[in-house]
């Protein structure tokens, strides 16, 4: 059986497969290779994630192979990124049919996702930087691949500039660590003994640098511009970007957790990310473009991931990153289905009665308390319990209370229960994978969690007040600021896609 195989086999097999898939994508670039070769290419793209999956299931030991480091965490991340890459490439086979840069899309997508997965199995700092740099470069090129379109070029420039800053800052932080600890291996540099060589001011500075490096790819305010402007990219490119790349911040912080934990920087990150949660959600609420709503949502979700990191819940952050990736990839890929014909015509809206509010609240509070009691020691659990309770309350009202007829209530309740069971099952599964690799030694003060909950509650209340006073000046100001924060810049808008006008000219 698979688990009897020599454990060293998986890493080598995995790396070989990655190399082959890169090679195949380069072959496909050649104009003489027939277009039907794309099927072979995409078929092969499924192999590396499968290897990672098998390794994730059967190969629990941590192992170092040259500059690479394989653990459950890195297998999980590699599997996730490559799976998203594979799905997106399969989507592109038909979706981009006829595009003049057809072959380049596949090559660049392969480079981007392969590099991203290689980043998370790197142990050597230099390799990690190189792979991460390649990922960012690949993404920038993908955004600007429609070169004939001026707004795509401009958006790629904006992204490239911000990515370069982020990468440069990361480079600086890493060189600093390596110089101070005399280790270029992640596993050596981040041991308590190595870290002891750093002064506390050095630690603080490096942590601040790390924060700058991670908030840019996570599109946090005030560096959220690039994600908004990159809506010009074709849908599958947005899917891979929102699913597989933006969450790098959470992963980097998880890798550097031994350094990052217990520092003041955590609190700074918490504050900045809380602002971004509010801005991202606000953009989602006021925007009317579907893709732009999704961008707002991604900003908020990534802020939440960083908040989880700031609260020391690294496993939760990784889980959130992975599940959000699945969620957002799907929403982007099916963004053509948003216009539904007559679907709402069948839905009977039921007004919220007092008793529904009361039962909904009670169910929510009970669920929240129950959730908290399952693991009361952790700071983050408090936040988690608050959100779970809140969500259960809404789900109860929508699914159970608003059902029509007996059957409606029963089915709604069934959906709620099944949803909860699957949620817990998945969490249990992922936690099992992650708890060994991601270690948390220090819990941040409970006060941080309480402050966060108060911020969320406060935002909710302010939002509720504003929506009830739509005609007030304050609503207008808040509304317009959120619109402004979510709108693209002038140089990435074109009232008509003029490049199409002259594109046919190539024939002659």
């Amino acid at each position, binding site marked *: 059986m698979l688990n009897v195989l020599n454990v060293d086999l998986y890493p080598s097999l995995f790396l070989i497969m990655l190399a082959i898939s890169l090679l195949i994508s380069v072959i496909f670039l050649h104009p003489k290779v027939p*277009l039907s070769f794309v099927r072979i290419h995409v078929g092969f793209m499924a192999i590396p994630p499968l290897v990672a999956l098998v390794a994730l299931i059967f190969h629990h030991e941590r192992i170092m192979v040259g500059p690479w480091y394989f653990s459950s965490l890195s297998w999980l991340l590699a599997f996730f990124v490559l799976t998203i890459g594979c799905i997106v490439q399969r989507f592109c086979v*038909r979706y981009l049919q006829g595009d003049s840069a057809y072959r380049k899309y596949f090559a660049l997508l392969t480079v981007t996702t392969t590099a991203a997965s290689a980043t998370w199995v790197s142990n050597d700092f230099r390799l990690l930087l190189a792979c991460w740099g390649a990922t960012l470069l690949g993404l920038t090129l993908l955004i600007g691949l429609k070169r004939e379109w001026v707004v795509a070029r401009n958006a790629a420039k904006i992204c490239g500039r911000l990515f370069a800053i982020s990468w440069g800052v990361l480079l600086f932080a890493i060189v600093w660590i390596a110089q101070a600890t005399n280790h270029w291996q992640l596993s050596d540099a981040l041991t308590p003994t190595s870290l002891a060589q750093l002064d506390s001011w050095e630690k603080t500075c490096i942590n601040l640098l790390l924060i700058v490096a991670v908030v840019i790819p996570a599109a946090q305010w005030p560096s959220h511009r690039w994600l908004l402007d990159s809506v010009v990219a074709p849908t599958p490119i947005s899917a891979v970007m929102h699913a597989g790349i933006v969450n790098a911040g959470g992963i980097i912080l998880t890798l550097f957790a031994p350094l990052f934990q217990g520092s003041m920087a955590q609190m700074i990150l918490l504050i900045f990310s809380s602002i971004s949660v509010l801005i991202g959600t606000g953009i989602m609420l006021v925007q*009317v473009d579907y893709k732009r709503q999704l961008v707002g949502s991604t900003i908020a979700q990534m802020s939440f991931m960083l908040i989880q990191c700031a609260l020391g819940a690294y496993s939760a952050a990784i889980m959130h990153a992975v599940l959000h990736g699945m969620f957002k990839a799907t929403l982007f*890929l099916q963004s053509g289905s948003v216009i539904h014909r007559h679907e709402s*015509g069948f839905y009977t809206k039921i007004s919220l009665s007092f008793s529904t509010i009361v039962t909904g609240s009670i169910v929510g509070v009970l669920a929240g308390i129950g959730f908290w009691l399952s693991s009361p020691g952790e700071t983050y659990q408090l936040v988690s319990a608050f959100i779970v309770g809140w969500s259960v309350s809404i789900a109860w009202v929508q699914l159970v209370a608003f059902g029509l007829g007996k059957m409606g209530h029963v089915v709604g309740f069934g959906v709620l229960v099944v949803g909860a069971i699957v949620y817990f099952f998945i969490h249990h599964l992922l936690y099992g994978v992650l708890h060994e690799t991601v270690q948390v030694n220090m819990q941040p003060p409970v006060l941080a969690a309480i402050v966060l909950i108060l911020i969320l509650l406060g935002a909710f209340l302010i939002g509720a007040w504003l929506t009830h006073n739509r005609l007030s000046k304050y609503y207008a100001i808040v509304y317009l600021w959120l619109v402004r924060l979510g709108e693209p810049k002038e140089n990435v808008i*074109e009232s008509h896609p003029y490049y199409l006008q002259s594109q046919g000219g190539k024939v002659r």
Partner: protein
Amino acid sequence: MTTTLVKEINIEKRFNSVNLNELVETASKVIVPLGPLTKFAARHPWAGIEQQSFEQVARKLKSTSNVEIYPDDSILQSAWNRGEIGQEFLEMKLQQWLDSQSFELPSEVVTQFCQATLMQEKKSIKQLPKTEIKGMARELVNDFHIPTKQVLQTYSQRLQRINGENLTEVLNGQLIKWCKLFLDEAQAVWAMPNRDKGFYYAWKEMAKYDPAMNHLIRRELSHLPNDATQALMDALLGLEISYLEIESYLEAHLLALPGWAGTMLWRSQQSTEQKNIVMEYLAVRICLEYALIKPHLPLPQPKQEEKIELLESLIASWAHWGDMPIKEWLELSPKEAKARLALAYRFDQTVQHRLWLEAWEQTFEDQLQNIISSTRNRVVEFPKSALAQFAFCIDVRSEPFRRQLEDAGPFETFGTAGFFGLPIETSELGSKHSHPSLPVLFKPQIKVKEWSSENDLKPYKQRHQTVGSISYAFKRLKYNLPSSLLLPEISGPWLILQTMARSFVPRSTGDVYRKIRGKWLRKPQAQLSLDRAQASESELPIGFTLEEKVHYVRQALKMMSLTENFSPLVVICGHGSHSTNNPYASALDCGACGGASSGFNARVLATLCNLPVVRKLLELEGIIIPKETVFVAAEHITTLDELQWLYVPKLTAKAKEAFEAIQKVLPKVSEQANAERIPKLPGVGACSHNHKNEAKRLGNDWSEVRPEWGLARNATFIIGNRALTQYCNLDARAFLHNYDWKKDPNGPILANIISGPATVAQWINLQYYASTVAPHYYGSGNKTTQTVTAGIGVMQGNASDLLSGLPWQSVMQSDEEAYHAPLRLLVVIEAPRKYVLRMLDQNPAFLQKIQNGWIRLASIDQEGNWESWS
């Protein structure tokens, strides 16, 4: 025009609000209403300006909006390469043009120059020295008088031309933002306030707080009057637009974003409360322009540079095509130089493209004539009594299917407009929505609802509610702050399952999903509300009165010229399309039914035809439907080329026999129709040879951008007996409408076909035409970079005009190659000459379309003589 003069005119002609409204109304003829994408209706973008000729409109659009509406060189070149443009026709068209012009030059010089220009045969390959041309242009500039064009551009456009400052895009960006926020239908949770008080007021209340504008402009905007008309007038006065120029000034502004402006126009036609919304739109736009441009006023006058540039191009074209070195100009007499410049000026790109297009159209007409006449002598013998008769929509996709069906057995087919002449609004069982199921040209007059007993309906509604409540719960969780953070963790695993399935087994996933949904919903057998029921004053009456039933049945049968020799089984076929994840799904449905399947209309008509009381009354008028004849309804699924039964009542013995015969041949018909159609769709090589599976995949694959070709390549509308085209392979390019002139002595049927179905077809044709020749302006751009906005339409990339026509992928084979051939619709009428003359006489609007080049006409008389009327 000098400022003082403008002021004088202003004082002289104090315009008041009444005629400003009129001016807005006249100006808005340059755009067409744009409804939401769910009701995708084929609209022809120049419907309001058909009183101008095609060439006039082309020139106007080129100068105001830089939009070219003749096919460009590359499209023409590839048509030429495929042999679709005959050289003899090109020469003929050139000769016709030359005959209509006069130049003070020897005719062989003129002909030689024009021919070389038209064929783009470069005489000298070497690069022309730029400085030399410029010098020569300066020499000649004072001799040559260029007729000044009456073109009005907006101030922001003018400013951009003068100093490159891109105020137009800033202004457009602002308008896009305000329009989408205002027009939003249910996408945003926090909506723009004051929307019920009109666009202008809502904007005015917000603009003063808008952080996107600097404080000077905000201050400027905070003093605007409450009334939109007043504000528009003030801004026009401020910009010093003279009374005579207002209309074209408003036109230029409407043409800047024709999609958003068109949506406003559509809104203005929907309710009386918003009837002034186009004026409000213009008020917002021009007030904002005024505020932005104020610091730049007065604008400097454009210099002579443009004239020199024009002259340079004229000199260059003589050097290229006339084999005339630049120095030679000095040796010419001023008179000849002038004549030569005038020739190059008049024989410009627009004329050249026009001649090319006309030659292409002429070639097509010639080929069509050959195809039809080649089969004409064949003895067309209809089985005296066909086993079954089918009425199909005129849609071009019906043609190949009909051909295969006729080949497969003793079946007769008819073509008629897919709404079957029923002016109805339809409403599905349990749904609160209703759909106007008729061409956008007409207004619905009767509502037909599906109904069933309360015992069936209630559980059905509950089942629907359960399905809906899951997606509503998803939305609620998504738009609520703390819960939105948890939603990905709850729904992620489910969504990825769906994504995996849709990605790797697209065909079965779609099927399984549809089956499960159908099984769960178990839609009960629904009846149609055909009998008139009282409705409230404001609503449409539900159902038909007896007279109406008879009227519509008679009209439908007469239109399809099926009034005798009824088969035991008559199948009324609507058509619809199945595609996944496609915002343009409704563009593939029936264009005559407002972008929905015409199955509903088919059911209504078939049911009406089976009513004994209707048949009895028809008998009195000579339309005798035999007792054994049964009408059934079916839907032609164009993505799959399958017929699906929608309504099959109890069949008589003979009808049953026919029904079984059809069932037997249908699989083969589908197979052959698919075999003809599927290879035309681009694939990435080595696609499965099982066309049926491929067709299914195309409909179910969520990543498919071309689920079918729709009506691409449509080119002609043939009105005549089926015998005329029976054995012709028309390659899915023809709308076919049955017509027997012998049964129409007074001409009302022909008049009806021309004013209804032919107009629908013309609109569809010009929409495809426009989306191909100006894909960025009249098309809706690349599907891969679209974003759905405000729940009503799509934009490109980050933000753009609300795009109207068809996407790039619907008319293009690939980025490099067009699929649709942009030809103006050729209407062919099989009738004696005097019938055509009478029709033209009675329908001046149609005559105007022909004279101005918006449609083309040919006829075939009783002897089979072909006559071109264009």
